[in-house]
């Protein structure tokens, strides 16, 4: 059931879709992000790119899109998209990762499949890059494949992280990423969180921060994120942009990740 809210449509940067009521979280209508094509997720180190990418992939898959996601994190060997590969595969989301024997190596291996998936994109092709400017060097290597394609390059920001707690800090990393990747950032994703200790107030503070950054940078705020466990306490009307529900997948071994499969009808 897809309803376009005309009045909001001028404020946000896509359509709002209401999910079937049975999928509502805590009585709150979950708004959806209207993104398709090639989406490249960038941001400073530890801003939450991978968790956002995984949940965005799941969100769009549930909306009926064919989704492929590539783990381009060649920088950091821990907490990468590849860790959620099996769970995403169960939902029918293909995860492109380096060959099995190099999975746990801290080697910058770029699968040749990635340029193929850019040349022949799915309805949604998600590229989850590594952190900071060094994390997006890989994109320059994919320049030929990306050339002439319509792409979204979205910068994830979490004001509760070091170096991006100010608009200036976020803009600095924006320019560094743009210089290294030779791509222009086209939108912002507000990912304010303190993981388990995030409060409703933090979400609203982070939203205001993201709006401020949007205004200062001239970049649209594509969506903000809210953890599933906080959703019941959130007033969805507070936001003029869509909200991406985060069902946390990258958890330490003593915690359980959210079951993604249980939400599929």
């Amino acid at each position, binding site marked *: 059931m897809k309803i376009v809210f005309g009045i909001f449509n001028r404020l946000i940067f896509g359509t709002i879709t209401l999910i079937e009521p049975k999928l509502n979280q805590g009585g709150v209508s979950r708004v959806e992000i209207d993104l398709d094509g090639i989406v490249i997720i960038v941001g400073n*180190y*530890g801003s939450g790119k991978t968790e956002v990418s995984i949940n965005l992939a799941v969100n769009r898959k549930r909306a009926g899109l064919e989704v492929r996601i590539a783990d381009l994190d060649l920088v*950091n*060997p*821990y*907490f990468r998209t590849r860790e959620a590969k099996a769970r995403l595969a169960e939902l029918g989301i293909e995860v492109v990762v380096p060959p099995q024997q190099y999975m*746990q*190596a*801290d080697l910058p291996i770029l699968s040749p499949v990635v340029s193929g998936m850019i040349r022949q994109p799915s309805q949604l092709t998600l590229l989850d890059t590594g952190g900071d400017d060094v994390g997006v060097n890989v994109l320059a290597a994919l320049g030929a494949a990306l050339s002439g394609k319509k792409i979204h390059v979205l910068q994830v920001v*979490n004001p*509760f*992280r*070091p*170096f991006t*707690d100010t608009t200036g800090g976020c803009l600095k990393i924006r320019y560094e990423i743009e210089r290294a990747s030779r791509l222009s950032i086209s939108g912002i994703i507000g990912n304010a*969180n*303190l*993981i*388990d*200790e995030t409060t409703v107030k933090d979400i609203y503070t982070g939203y205001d921060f993201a709006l401020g950054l949007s205004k200062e940078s001239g970049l649209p705020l594509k969506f903000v994120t809210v953890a599933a466990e906080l959703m019941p306490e959130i007033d969805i009307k507070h936001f003029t942009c869509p909200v991406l529900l985060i069902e946390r997948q990258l958890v*330490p*071994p*003593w*915690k359980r990740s959210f079951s993604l499969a249980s939400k599929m009808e």
Partner: protein
Amino acid sequence: MGKILMKGNEAIGEAAIRAGCLNYFAYPITPQSEVAEYLSRRMPEVGGVFLQGESEVAVSYMLFGASACGARVFTTSSSPGISLMSEGISYIAGAQCPAVFVNIMRGGPGLGGILPSQADYFQSTKGGGHGDYRLLVMAPASVQEAVEMVMLAFPLAEKYRNPVMLLGDGLIGQMMEPVEFPDHLKSEPTNKDEWATNGMDTRGSNKRNLVKSLFLDAGKLNEHNLMLKAKYDRMKQEEIRYELYNIESDYKALIVSYGTMSRVCKTSIDNMKDEGLEVGMVRPQTLFPFPEKAIYEAASKESCKVVVSIEMSMGQMVEDVERSVKGKLPVRWYGKCGGDVPTPEEVIEAVKSFL
């Protein structure tokens, strides 16, 4: 300042700055390179020094030299890098200079792997380098605790004029948790005139400070080692730190576990409690000195039938646990050492198999 979200490695770097340490020398290695990356950015901001050495051996002697001059110094590395630094660590301990080392452990031996491990227990608690020295070894189980331990490590290193080792595993370095930083410490060791070669005029004294670990005379070297031993004995009296978990229950089994592994064990203990099986835990926060008495007392509970050492090594802590339990109960081991952290379910299965 409120809480911020930090990786363990970043938080360790920031904690060192807050502890007044403005000298950081390092050589990058996974899974702790973020400390170097973070401090290469932060040290210039606070007027400190970040210097990448040409090797870990070089780094350990940079620490030695700077510490000998009375500066507060630290480095971070991971298992193979600590092996290389071990020569310098022995010299620093022998010359009684304070320094803080952080080991974010990865799998071994040799190059091993880059995933979490606790296989450097022997290396850090039983020597590592040559000679009759000990390190004061602390093992954090969370990013917040890593911050607190780093900030404690510097005053302790200076109190004992001995290297202090912070032993974390790859997960402690890589995971993100919200943290809060305590107030800044003063940036200079208050007792540095005891050893620093900073000039007699500066100290206003006519006592010459000589930093050395060479004692050719047998009697003098023996005397020196007895004095070092007295320091290590004092650590055993004054520095033992540990946490007790579910110890008020009538537990059937007692787990001894530290660092990341203890976080998994806590989840297992909670889950077993829900099933009606009580299990207690002693979590050593200092690995040397080891909380022998606390473990002995916990193992003395009448309901307790077995003590299980759970670690991401092939049972390196078992000997210390056995020594603590003094034959009162059987001591078993469960663990993995390839990089996979045992799951709460695997820990439960292991504990049940020993009952």
